[in-house]
């Protein structure tokens, strides 16, 4: 079930390095929000604070609050493992489990949760692969290893794996940057369908992609190398691309820097 994300005063560190500083924003349920900004401004870092993956990095530390509906992900009694089960993630490079079959890849999350019945599993796998527009391509070879698929297929397999557990939120970090234009289109279409069910946040370096898939766009920037990244503005995608309220945003979008 899609949930609203409410971030306030979020700062993230790598050791002593402050990577992003004091970020606050709201992401509406059943919408697509795109993060854009120059390389190194902390888009990935911020994304990874939303499912508590940031703290997996040695030295990774977070201050501030992330509310999912009304629950603080960084509350004292919150188990990060439980957070990651409700906030799914798709990575830049497709990373299916190479030692597992296609079927087992999609079923992996469910098996972790332990809440499934054998006959149910096959249904969920089929539904998720259909949801990721991959079913027709792989239905005859579900027992083959996932690493035998093409890059675009692998990425859709990863999406299927992420949505199989019915997360509340789906985070995607440049999911198309390793893919050809056709696979990219396939995934963009898929994002359009998935937003009916999930809250989606996507990082992208592709302005057209941000314009095509997202409802709202957030622009991040950093004042200089080594300085923390900041949220410059977040608004309806149309406004960001037509007449943003900050000059830096316009410069970035029109390709004048970054």
């Amino acid at each position, binding site marked *: 079930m899609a949930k609203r994300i409410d971030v306030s005063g979020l700062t993230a560190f790598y050791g002593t390095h402050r990577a992003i500083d004091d970020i606050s924003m709201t992401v509406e349920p059943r919408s697509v929000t795109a993060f854009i900004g120059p390389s190194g401004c902390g888009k990935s870092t911020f994304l990874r604070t939303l499912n508590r993956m940031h703290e997996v990095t040695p030295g990774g530390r977070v201050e501030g609050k992330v509310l999912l509906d009304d629950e603080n992900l960084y509350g004292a009694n919150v188990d990060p493992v439980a957070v990651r089960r409700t906030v799914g993630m798709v990575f830049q490079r497709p990373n299916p*489990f*190479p030692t597992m079959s296609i079927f087992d890849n999609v079923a992996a999350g469910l098996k972790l949760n332990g809440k499934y019945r054998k006959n149910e599993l096959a249904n969920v796998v089929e539904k998720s692969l259909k949801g990721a527009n991959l079913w027709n391509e792989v239905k005859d070879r579900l027992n083959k290893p996932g690493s035998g698929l093409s890059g675009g297929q692998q990425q859709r397999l990863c999406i299927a794996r992420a949505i199989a557990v019915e997360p509340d939120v789906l985070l995607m970090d440049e999911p198309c940057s390793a893919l050809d234009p056709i696979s990219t289109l396939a995934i963009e279409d898929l994002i359009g369908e998935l937003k009916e069910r999930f809250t989606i946040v996507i990082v992208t370096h592709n302005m057209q992609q941000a314009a095509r898939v997202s409802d709202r766009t957030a622009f991040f920037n950093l004042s200089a190398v080594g300085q923390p990244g900041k949220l410059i503005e977040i608004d309806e995608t149309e406004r960001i691309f037509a007449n943003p309220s900050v000059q830096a945003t316009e410069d970035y979008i029109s390709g004048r820097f970054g």
Partner: protein
Amino acid sequence: MDTTTAPPTDAPPPPPVFDKGAPKAKKQLGDRIFLGLSRGSGITLLVIMAAIAAFLTYRAMLAISKDETNFLTTFEWNPQGEPVSFGIAVLAFGTVVSSIIAMVIAVPIAIGIALFISHFAPRRLAAPIAYLVDLLAAVPSIIYGLWGAVFLVPYLDGLNKWLDEYFAWTYIFDKTNEGVARNLFTVGILLAIMILPIITNVIREVFLQSPKMIEEAALALGATRWEVIRMAVIPFGRSGIISASMLGLGRALGETMAVAVVLSPSFLLSFHILDAGGGTFAQNIAAKFNEANGFGRDALIASGLVLFIITLLVNGAARAIIARRKEYSGANA
């Protein structure tokens, strides 16, 4: 002359584009020397191997053809007796059983230590532990043997009694003869300690190489640390674990001194692993070689050949297992 080469022309050849003069030529010479060396040593190695194999087989056949009892099933070693009678049954059994005991103990512990070093221990703890494991590998095997005989045997006597008392129903822990713990079980434990470092080090390297991307995939799905290990680290390292185990097994099968010092050798074949006595190929050869005459040595060589064949079979099996899993190995990820 090949007809497909370009027709000769009178025009001067174009200046060489990549030729940077002397350093380049030197490098090519270096390449040639290196190629010659590596090819030469490869061939030499093959020739030496073939010579050894031929020699061993020849001497072994000489001995086996004069054996008046079955070489494979006889429970005694009496090549200089009347009649000539020697067989490898007890040796093969002792070798295999002690090695299996060693593997059963060492492999899980090695996986545990490797996991701890690679994925759980804080960095300032991981390095010293890895160093300690390396140190274990540097101890000479005769020292292990002495330690085993002087410390382990009396210490394990109590454990043997306890196992015999409460676990005799498992059959293998039923002790049916008197005598101290100079048995296959003790040998197995000692071998386990001896092969632990090599197995641990190989597995640790494999685990350290497990791809971060895949581990993050598991984490992001909501896997606990242990589940990450189970989903991403161990499957990825499976063929490495098998290779490491085979390396250790090879050492255990061939270990001589430590076994010779600890075991009280006898030609007893008992599935009760706490029974004192038994023998292994290497131990038997080490114990008998000096007193043996020419024929006796041939007989020992024959037993050595069997050990060699067993080692080859074990390696072949390991390779087969690894090859069968290749598709899923993650090598193409």
